[in-house]
């Protein structure tokens, strides 16, 4: 179960207010405004070059916004260096100090701040190594550890001074898929245990949905949508979000009064679909691959089977229908060259 972030009415832990970052004529971040609540696991997700890492670096204090304000607990932090922001940062490539042992790496931040709860430095280091499952490896050379272990050291090091904010910049991109899944569960459980406000940057939307309390989807330096994972997945507000978060099938058409009292009829080319939404004029709606069903009674279309991939639990089938390419998810591979599928009107979501 996810621990919900406390929203006690105080100022947000981190607030970006109309923040832009330009390098010469190139704009990396354009007018971004988001509020990150205290204790929340907040994720910035988007394709490469969308400005998510720059946004994180603006929060950490490695970059200064061209315009706009960054506030920590209501306080403007312009001019405050990263060393005075009380943040912990974890980088993709771990950035461990190779001339120090694992324990010295973890202890480094304790040179500048006393360990919390009156602990001694050694006690704090031992506590954190235990937290990330590396007890007994304190004397090791960081380069002697595996990639996953190095990243755990990096996380322990960032957490040691008890930061008010944990910033993770694509911390798992350098790891293999299986390790990534395990580590992201661990990061989430550590975060829940400590209750530390966390900003997580990833290009992997599945990862973002899996671990976050809330997610901001970025594209070309702008925030497309902020919301909890389920609302992003079920109720995308832009074409970009609909296509970026999970797989989707988009239909552009013209709405008319529905055949049923609670539906709208949308003409798409030669065909028409019944969808359970209020719409008028030109509309775009989307249907998730899993909503298509050969046994559905509504919105049936006959399509050519282009190819299929057997994934175990399901089969991912690509269909050609009119000039559309559709992706549907079926329990078993189709055995014919054409396939008739339909979807429930309530499974269509109108974008915008």
């Amino acid at each position, binding site marked *: 179960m996810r621990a919900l972030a406390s929203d006690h009415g105080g100022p947000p*832990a981190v607030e970006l207010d109309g923040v832009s970052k330009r390098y010469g004529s190139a704009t990396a971040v354009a007018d971004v405004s988001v509020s990150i609540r205290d204790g929340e696991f907040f994720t910035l997700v988007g394709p490469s070059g969308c400005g998510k890492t720059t946004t994180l670096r603006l929060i*950490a*204090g*490695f970059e200064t916004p061209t315009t706009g304000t960054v506030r*920590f*607990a209501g*306080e403007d*932090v312009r*001019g*405050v*260096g*990263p*060393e*005075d*922001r*009380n*943040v*912990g*940062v974890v*980088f993709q*490539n771990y*950035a461990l*100090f*190779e*001339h120090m042992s694992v324990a010295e790496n973890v202890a*480094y*931040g304790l*040179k*500048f*701040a*006393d360990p*919390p*709860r*009156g602990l001694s430095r050694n006690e704090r280091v031992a506590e954190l190594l235990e937290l990330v499952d590396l007890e007994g490896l304190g004397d090791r050379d960081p380069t002697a550890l595996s990639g996953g272990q190095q990243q755990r050291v*990096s996380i322990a*090091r*960032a957490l*040691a*001074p*008890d930061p*008010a904010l944990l*910033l993770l910049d694509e911390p798992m991109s350098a790891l293999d898929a299986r390790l990534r899944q395990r580590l992201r569960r661990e990061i989430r459980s550590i975060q829940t245990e400590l209750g530390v406000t966390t900003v997580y940057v990833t290009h992997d939307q599945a990862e973002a949905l899996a671990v976050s309390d809330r997610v901001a989807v970025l594209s070309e330096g702008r925030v497309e949508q902020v919301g909890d994972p389920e609302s992003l997945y079920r109720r995308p507000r832009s074409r970009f979000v609909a296509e970026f978060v999970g797989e989707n099938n988009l239909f552009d058409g013209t709405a008319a009064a529905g055949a049923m009292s609670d539906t709208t009829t949308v003409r798409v080319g030669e065909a028409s679909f019944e969808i359970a939404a209020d719409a008028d004029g030109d509309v775009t709606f989307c249907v998730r691959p899993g909503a298509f069903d050969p046994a559905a009674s509504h919105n049936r279309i006959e399509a050519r089977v282009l190819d299929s991939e057997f994934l175990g639990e399901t089969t991912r089938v690509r269909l050609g229908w009119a000039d559309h390419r559709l992706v549907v998810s079926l329990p078993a591979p189709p055995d014919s060259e054409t396939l008739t599928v339909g979807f429930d009107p309530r499974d269509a979501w109108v974008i915008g």
Partner: protein
Amino acid sequence: MTDADRSAGARPERPTDASGPPEGERFAAGLRDRGRRVRHRFERRALLLFGAGTIALVASLFYYPVATVFVEAFVVGGRVTLSAFGELLRDPLYFGEFARLFAGEPPLAVGRDLLSADRRLGVVGFTAYQAFLSTLLSVALGVPAAYLLARFEFYGRRTLRSLTILPFVVPSIMVAAGFAATFGANGTLNALLGALRLPSIELMFTLELILIAHAFYNAPLVARVTTAAWESIDAGSVETARSLGASPLRAFLDVVAPRLYPAVLMGATLTFVFTFGTFPIVLALGGFELATVEVFVFRLISDLDYAEAAALAIVELAITLGLLYGYLRYEASHAVRSRGRRPLARKPLVPDAPSPRELLARLGIAAYAIVALFVFVAPIASMVYASVAGPDGLTLAHYRFLLQRQATGASFQVQPFEAVRNSVLFAAAALALALPMGVVVAALTTRRYRGRKLVDVVAMAPLAVSGIVVGLGLLRGVVFGVEVGGWRFAAGGTVAIVAAHAVACYPFVVRTVAPGLEGLDPALVESARALGAARTRALLDIEIPLVWPGVVAGAAFAFAISMGEFSSTVVLASGTDQFTMPVAIERLIGRRLGPATAMGVVLLAVTSVSFVLIDRLGGESFGL
């Protein structure tokens, strides 16, 4: 609101335990906290402070003194004028037949006279002429060495390759001592010829000897850059050419050679620039008859003709910088940066199955080895031999002489012990100054910010300006003193010499430290900063320990350069007792070869230790 207030505000208050620690502990914690805050506040600004300090130091120890010299060329009788340059350009003493061109004679007539046998080149023309010949000879000796180092495998190859960095640390006055010991009237060459009952030859004070000495100095440089280029060629590209039907020679000409030209050109340009500004070698081996521009500048300064000296130094600087600029433009448009994934395989020097082709290549190498032995090994060996040779066999008399406090019957005021002691002290002091300066400049120039290139150029300029000019500037600006608002600021000759050495040394520290810093992942510093380390603290805790080998190599470089520094020291030391070994060697060459070579051996020992340190710790990362 100050930064400190703000940062305190930015740190969200943490709920403290209701019970809390006892009072005494709280007090201690408070004190600790206070100390930490003070240190933190200092460290946040320290890098900028040190940066400003370094710039102030370079400004007062380099730019200001040099400016006082250069101003002489433009101010005549209190008026700003370019007349000094005009006179210089029209003076056949400096520009030979070219001076007539500047004086307005038709180019055709001048061109015809230039082709005639009794043409006059003038000092500048001669300097360029000898630099050109030196460059040809250095390339001719350097490229075969690159071929040997890049394409053959043999015992000692890596050591030989490392030795190519020596020109940067070997004092040129030591090279001169070695050449005097080899080619002088009583040198080993004539001893050898005498033993073979052949007539002796006199090479001292000839152009040939200067050219060979320049090649000794610069051929390793050509070899070094060319070897690096050769090793960066991917074997796959040659194999592709061969598989497409190219003969081995064709593949070499089409694939390998185009990658070597830029490197050879770089080596040649640097050689030309170095030999154009040559000073100690020509002064010691050529005398005033074969004077180059730099020697003339020195002579003019000795004659107190500062305006002409300054104008000549500016002309020299303009030619040198123009060449370097042109080269850098060429390099920017032709640079091939890709590193070969799989370098060409080296052939064993002793072939398994000799074919006529392979034997021919080895014969060539053998011939080259004999020449190389003559040019590179003989001078050093002769110097070492001459330092222990006496009239009745081997002797340590020359070394004992170095330890004497007062040279007996010395008509030319060389106190050998003082020279040795001064050299070591000045080098230590210069190192103490140059090391922090170099590290700070390296730290300031490896990070990206607006104006970085400018800082880089301003900080590196001491490499380009003649040491004589720096020496003279320091002599007049610092030793003679400056008046500011009725107060007179002056420093002793010792301070000035140390300053001149530090200015000459620190660019080498920058050059060894900067590549290491540049190669560090920026996330390391960012991690440290996010953990609470101020910028300077991150430099001390993270960056410097990680590039420590480069720092030590830079220190070794600085020490060796200071030990061998000649140009500015000779200006600052004349008429004082602040002789260093290089200055003493120059006085002793041709008068008392024994002590000169003994000092040369001491310099060789210091240089060798520096070289081993540089090679083991930072030779590969050095920017050349």
